[in-house]
């Protein structure tokens, strides 16, 4: 290890997580939880310090360990450090949260969760440092393994095992794709570091193959549609702080990988690369939020929103690739910065939302929001945190979600500068769909927050709910602070991103991504400017003025509590309230073409006349048709092949001997004209 200062932090990081893992195995009870949480927190903090040093001082930190086949090589450069920051923030919050969350859950669950939480954090921290294919793939698989066991932490949960299997299967397929990618690239050589890959000359077809394999491999990890199938299954069943990590950080490793490979190592490519990524991103963003709207399972809803936000990030990456192809480095840098910034922001607010959802689930023992309601009075702090998270993910200023999407809008608006008009006209479509998805996200979170926290409890569970313990609140409010801070401070973050992007080949002009006196500028040469702090300040100022004026001029304020009016209804019961389903109904109708819902309506009429209806039963289900069209046929095909192959083993020894002789004769003749 070089760079004395950073070395210590790295050592702490490498020691703390394993300690936590071991402690989880041996120490029971509150003490055990405390040690595990503390170890995870310390490790994350160390990670943050390390990343901060590398980001500040730009010099990569190196290290290597002996290993079979080739030494494991680690190297933390600013790009990796940025993702290490993401890991550290969410990891720290999640580990604080885990202390209170674990109280009352059985020892087996605690053990699995504790061990794998620490291992996952370790894996995530090492992933962004891995500097050779072997290292990268090894850590990748270990990380997936830890996440797999986190999904399996409560195997008796319905669907948990199935979800875990899906998760690991798809992830492993992605691993295979990455394996093929790296070794097609290096021609089978165990390259000592990624930098060597950069030097390898690739001809067109092979480069395209490498790019596509990278897209598939990292896409499965990031969960872009249509490779998302595991995500809405796996994330809900994991313990909530684990879901927060998986949704907030693990997905981002896909983003990291894609940035590392396509921007750092592979170099500029044809235009269709960018368009493909942009298209995938757009589709994921839109379908993700549309399916989220249809969910009643709070955590499932959040999982689908992860797909949406990953889609937004991929839109940024795609735009960046396009701009780089058309040699618009500054715009490319802007789009990339937007994507990276959104990565960080999404990590914060999505983790916050998952932690909040976890608090709700822990208090009410149900994930179905149709059974919730009125929690804002019973768990006010959680409600506030969740509200902030919802506002952030709905891209409301002055929170962080808005800041990054603003940058993305700006870069897409810059798409007007693309010389090829046929490509340029795609940009406004992207802009429109991005806006649509953000609007739908707002609608979805009005539903999520409103039905869960507002109005009257819809079930005894919700009535019996209690506020989450302090440690969990601490975890949540840390992230609230992060959301607000990142929302107000893009002027501080963007130049940082500019510096680290400027280190990528061909994007040196990114150093020009500056932010003049607190105002966030789309580009040095115009294209819009805004200042989140100023906006926030303006809002506060106006609020103060309004308050003062009202106090001064308006007549004294009188308030009376009464029953809900509701156009003069007398009695109010929970069943009269709007449900999540009815809330989403208009949008379900509007987008029926996309949902392809399955509907069946049965009307039971009076025997005498069909005008007297006795009962009407209406059932409608929205099943993601991507699965119907893609995965079910695939599975059916494989199963069929399996059955056909098993026919070979028909049981007759004569047949078997016949196989042998056939093989013999065939090989004898093959051997004749084989060189």
């Amino acid at each position: 290890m070089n760079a004395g200062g950073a070395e210590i932090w790295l050592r702490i990081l490498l020691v703390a997580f394993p300690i936590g893992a071991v402690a989880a195995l041996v120490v029971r009870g509150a003490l055990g939880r405390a040690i595990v949480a503390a170890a995870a927190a310390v490790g994350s903090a160390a990670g943050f310090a390390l990343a901060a040093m590398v980001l500040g001082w730009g010099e990569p930190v190196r290290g290597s360990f002996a290993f079979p086949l080739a030494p494991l090589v680690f190297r933390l450069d600013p790009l990796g450090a940025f993702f290490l920051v993401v890991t550290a923030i969410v990891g720290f919050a999640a580990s604080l949260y885990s202390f209170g969350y674990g109280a009352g859950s059985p020892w087996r669950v605690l053990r699995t969760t504790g061990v794998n939480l620490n291992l996952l954090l370790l894996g995530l921290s090492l992933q962004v440092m891995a500097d050779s294919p072997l290292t990268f793939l090894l850590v990748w698989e270990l990380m997936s393994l830890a996440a797999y066991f986190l999904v399996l932490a409560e195997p008796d949960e319905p669907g948990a095992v199935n979800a875990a299997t899906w998760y690991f299967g798809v992830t492993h397929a992605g691993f295979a794709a990455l394996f093929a990618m790296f070794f097609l690239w290096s021609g089978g050589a165990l390259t000592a570091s990624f930098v060597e890959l950069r030097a390898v000359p690739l001809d067109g077809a092979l480069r395209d193959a490498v790019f596509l394999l990278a897209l598939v491999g990292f896409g499965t990890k990031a969960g872009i549609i249509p490779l998302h199938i595991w995500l809405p299954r796996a994330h809900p069943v994991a313990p909530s702080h684990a879901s927060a990590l998986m949704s907030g950080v693990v997905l981002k490793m896909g983003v990291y990988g894609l940035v590392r490979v396509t921007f750092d190592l592979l170099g500029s490519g044809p235009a269709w690369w960018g368009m493909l990524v942009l298209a995938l991103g757009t589709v994921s963003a839109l379908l993700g939020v549309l399916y989220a709207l249809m969910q009643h399972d709070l955590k499932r809803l959040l999982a689908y929103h992860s797909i949406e936000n990953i889609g937004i990030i991929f839109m940024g990456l795609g735009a960046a690739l396009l701009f780089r192809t058309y040699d618009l480095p500054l715009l490319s840098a802007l789009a990339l910065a937007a994507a990276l910034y959104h990565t960080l922001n999404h990590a914060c607010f999505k983790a916050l939302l998952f932690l909040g959802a976890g608090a709700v689930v822990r208090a009410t023992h149900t994930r179905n929001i149709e059974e919730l309601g009125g929690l804002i009075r019973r768990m006010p702090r959680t409600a506030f945190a969740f509200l902030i998270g919802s506002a952030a993910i709905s891209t409301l200023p002055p929170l962080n979600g808005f800041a990054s999407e603003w940058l993305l809008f700006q870069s897409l608006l810059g798409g007007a500068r693309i010389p090829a008009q046929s490509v340029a006209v795609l940009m406004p479509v992207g802009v429109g769909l991005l806006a649509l998805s953000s609007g739908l996200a707002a609608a979805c979170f009005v539903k999520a927050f409103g039905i869960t926290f507002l109005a009257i409890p819809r079930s005894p569970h919700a009535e019996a709910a209690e506020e989450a313990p302090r440690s969990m609140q601490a975890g949540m409010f840390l992230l609230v602070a992060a959301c607000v801070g990142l929302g107000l401070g893009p002027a501080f973050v963007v130049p940082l991103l500019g510096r680290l992007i400027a280190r990528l080949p061909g994007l040196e002009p990114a150093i020009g991504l500056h932010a003049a006196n607190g105002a966030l500028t789309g580009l040095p040469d115009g294209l819009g400017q805004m200042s989140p702090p100023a906006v926030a300040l303006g809002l506060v100022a106006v609020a103060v003025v309004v308050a003062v004026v009202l106090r001064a001029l308006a007549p004294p304020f009188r308030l009376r509590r009464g029953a809900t009016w509701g156009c003069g209804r007398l009695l109010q019961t929970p069943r009269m309230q709007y449900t999540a389903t009815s809330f989403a109904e208009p949008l379900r109708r509007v987008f029926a073409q996309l949902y392809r819902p399955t509907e069946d309506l049965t009307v039971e009429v009076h025997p005498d006349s069909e005008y007297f209806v006795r009962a009407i039963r209406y059932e409608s289900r929205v099943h993601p048709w991507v699965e119907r069209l893609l995965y079910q046929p695939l599975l059916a095909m494989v199963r069929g092949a399996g059955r056909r192959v098993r026919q070979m083993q028909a049981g007759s020894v004569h047949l078997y001997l016949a196989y042998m002789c056939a093989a013999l004769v065939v090989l004898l003749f093959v051997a004749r004209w084989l060189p």
Partner: protein
Amino acid sequence: MTSWLVELGQSTAALLMAPALVGLIRWLKARLQNRCGAPIWQPYFELHKLFAKEAVVSTNASWLFRAAPYVVFTSTVAITLVVPLMLVPLPFDGFADLLVVVYLLLLGTFFTALAGLDPGSPFGGMGSSRGMTVAALAEPTVAVAIFALASGAGSTNLGHIASRLIASPMAALTPGHLLAFASLFIVMLAEAGRLPIDNPATHLELTMIHEAMVLEYSGRYLALVEWASAVKLLIFFCLLANLFVPWGIATTVSAPALVLAAAALVIKLGMLCVAVAVLETRVAKLRLFRVPELLSVSFVLALLAVTSSFVLR
């Protein structure tokens, strides 16, 4: 320094002028329907009455229900600080651009919708559901219209857009510009809750959107909400007026220029009021599930606007 004063002055003026706009439209509609109609100042009387009345709040409602009106009012009023009314460029221009304006409006809608859900009345839920649907479906049009404006003017800041147009007035007549105007006009109808999307006058349970969301409000809360929606209408009018036909708007802080600008603004707003009033008397309210069709039309218009601006470049 004086420009700062102008800035604050004009937004205060806007704040005070907004109810009159609503009153004017009502009066015009009444005249068009051969009624004598209430005076233009009626909305002020209503606001005064509401401020004086005591507020009744549902026992189910939480702090959010009571905070929402202030949030909505504040965010809406804050917008007036950057909307060009009489003078460009404004000192606040650099702080917020068109996107900020749009998303601040979304912030208002977001909280209104939450407030609609809070008392637990079915009408509130219905209203917020529909309100969010319309708002979400309006977003893409707005964004693409902004794209058209920005790619024309090279910036998303309102001041720049306006001053660019002033620099080359004929650019206001390019097809892209006109198409964008049309699309944004439709969006205005949707966002400000005018016919044919929503009927501000109705309290017929099954047709209302915005009114359903704020059904449970009374007293000062209702006053703030109503006022905020009036200001919202004004903001949209100003955007339509001064981003697309910024003729007559003052570019220098001088008394004659400002007077001229004020006059121009009043004229433009008046024309828009007439347009809205005529429209609202001519068309009937759309069924809720026809609204998306209208909005998709506006989206297509906006896309055409952009593409034409590409083709013509």
